[in-house]
């Protein structure tokens, strides 16, 4: 018979040691996050004003103060919206095919493989591809749409992967319950499977959007630069917030550096706002709320 033992000093020490390691790594992981936010907010607030949000850089000279990022905000929103319109339907339908129809077939394995390959494409390569294909080969102009195409190449695999994972989480019991009621497969998918995984899919899509909203390299090669407002994403060069930050930060004057920080702050705020919206949608649709 074994007697009840006291916790030995050695175990107590190991426990403390591992515990402090865990806390330490958490602190180290948080430091860059807080530092980035702190820097951006501190430096960005100087120029984060109404003029910044409502004016473009048109007729702002190299040393002038003032000016704003309205053209860049507009461009980013339009480009990201277009990229979402292209990649969310395609990505979602691909995920539905993979999970609901193609299980185990050669085609679905091939699709899975290429989606994985696409996930690894460096963002500059997607920009180069659109530059070579859309602008040089087809002779179409630099435009917000070209940028959106490059972004959607980056976005699609993320949407497919996250939606696929969420669809797989839906228990098969629910599909069978629906079939047993005499509900056809397509309606089981649209009325049972998708609503059940809705919150997760929205979160995944938002992460994909957040990822592409900050991409600089593909835009550099496809939407080009402009200092003026161009609200038409199908014609002519546009601006994007990442481009704006890149452009302003490269200039030698303090006023330009301040604008770059304010642009970075705006970009972070837009992404945060999107995440907030996703949370709200998730909360609104969550079954636990009881409605």
């Amino acid at each position, binding site marked *: 018979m074994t007697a009840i033992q006291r916790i030995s000093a050695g175990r107590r020490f190991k426990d403390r040691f591992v515990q402090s390691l865990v806390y330490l790594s958490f602190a180290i992981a948080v430091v860059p996050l807080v530092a980035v936010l702190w820097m951006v907010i501190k430096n960005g607030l100087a120029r984060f004003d109404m003029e910044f949000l409502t004016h473009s850089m048109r007729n702002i000279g190299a040393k002038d103060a003032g000016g704003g990022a309205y053209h860049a905000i507009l461009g980013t929103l339009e480009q990201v919206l277009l990229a979402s319109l292209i990649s969310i339907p395609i990505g979602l339908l691909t995920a539905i095919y993979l999970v609901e129809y193609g299980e185990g077939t050669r085609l679905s394995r091939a699709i899975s493989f290429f989606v994985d390959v696409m996930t690894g494409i460096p963002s500059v390569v997607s920009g180069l591809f659109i530059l070579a294909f859309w602008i040089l080969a087809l002779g179409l102009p630099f435009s917000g749409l070209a940028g959106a195409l490059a972004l959607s190449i980056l976005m699609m695999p993320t949407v497919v992967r996250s939606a696929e994972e969420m669809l797989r989480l839906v228990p098969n*019991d*629910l599909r*069978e*319950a629906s079939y*047993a009621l*005499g509900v056809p497969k397509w309606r089981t998918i649209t*009325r049972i499977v998708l609503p059940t995984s809705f919150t997760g899919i929205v979160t995944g899509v938002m992460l994909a959007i957040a990822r592409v909203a900050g991409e600089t390299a593909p835009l550099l090669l496809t939407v080009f630069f402009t200092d003026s407002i161009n609200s038409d994403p199908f014609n002519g060069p546009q601006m994007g917030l990442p481009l704006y930050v890149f452009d302003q930060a490269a200039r030698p004057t303090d006023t330009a550096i301040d604008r770059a920080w304010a642009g970075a702050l705006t970009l972070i705020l837009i992404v945060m706002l999107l995440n907030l919206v996703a949370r709200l949608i998730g909360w609104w*649709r969550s*079954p636990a709320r009881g*409605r």
Partner: protein
Amino acid sequence: MSQQIQVSGLDAYYGKHKAIEDISMTIEPQSITAFIGPSGCGKSTFLRTLNRMHEVIPGARVEGKVMLDGEDLYAADVEPVSVRRMIGMVFQRPNPFPTMSIYENVAAGLRLNGRHPKSTVDGIVEESLKGANLWNEVKDRLNRPGAGLSGGQQQRLCIARAIAVKPEVLLMDEPCSALDPISTLAIEDLMAELKSRFTIIIVTHNMQQAARVSDRTAFFNLAGQGQPGRVIEMDDTSRIFTNPAQQATEDYITGRFG
């Protein structure tokens, strides 16, 4: 309302593996038939062939005939979806739709299959919940999520959902195996009531349950590992449990194996 089922020479496969072989039986309307037998002997597989749910699994197929009131469910031009509307199913684990309220769960079969005026749906929901002995417990919280109910209530909710589409036959795949004795009793009482309106077939591992609720019992077994399951004996329940014709049946019900 309920109809006779006649099965003849039915085999079911999962890919190359033959899960059940040469099953023939007649199931009378307005009765409860129980399938008993050791695990893996094909009871659930056979049950799922009766409403064409077997073929939902990739690679699964069926050979043979299942006649519902003279019509072959496996005829080439039969729409499987319509078969499932006529032959409802309750599963082993309660599986209410998590995004739906109690009301929506019961109405799911109607709403997903077409438009109905709200008053009709209201009536059917109330009638089905009453039919499943759940109305009194949930009538004040029909808009609460179905997943918030207890296990036994969830299973009765699933029964209400199944009977709301007014099937002819109700298949129950071990409906009580995840429930406590009180909930089990509630479901058994319910089955006795539903018998007057539906043909009920239940798969169970609980022999007392088979003896309590069913009119006829079929004993399934397989010759060995990897062999297909077969019906060893089918007879009136009282006879199966008191004086079975086959030695294997007697061994099983007296607990000598399985």
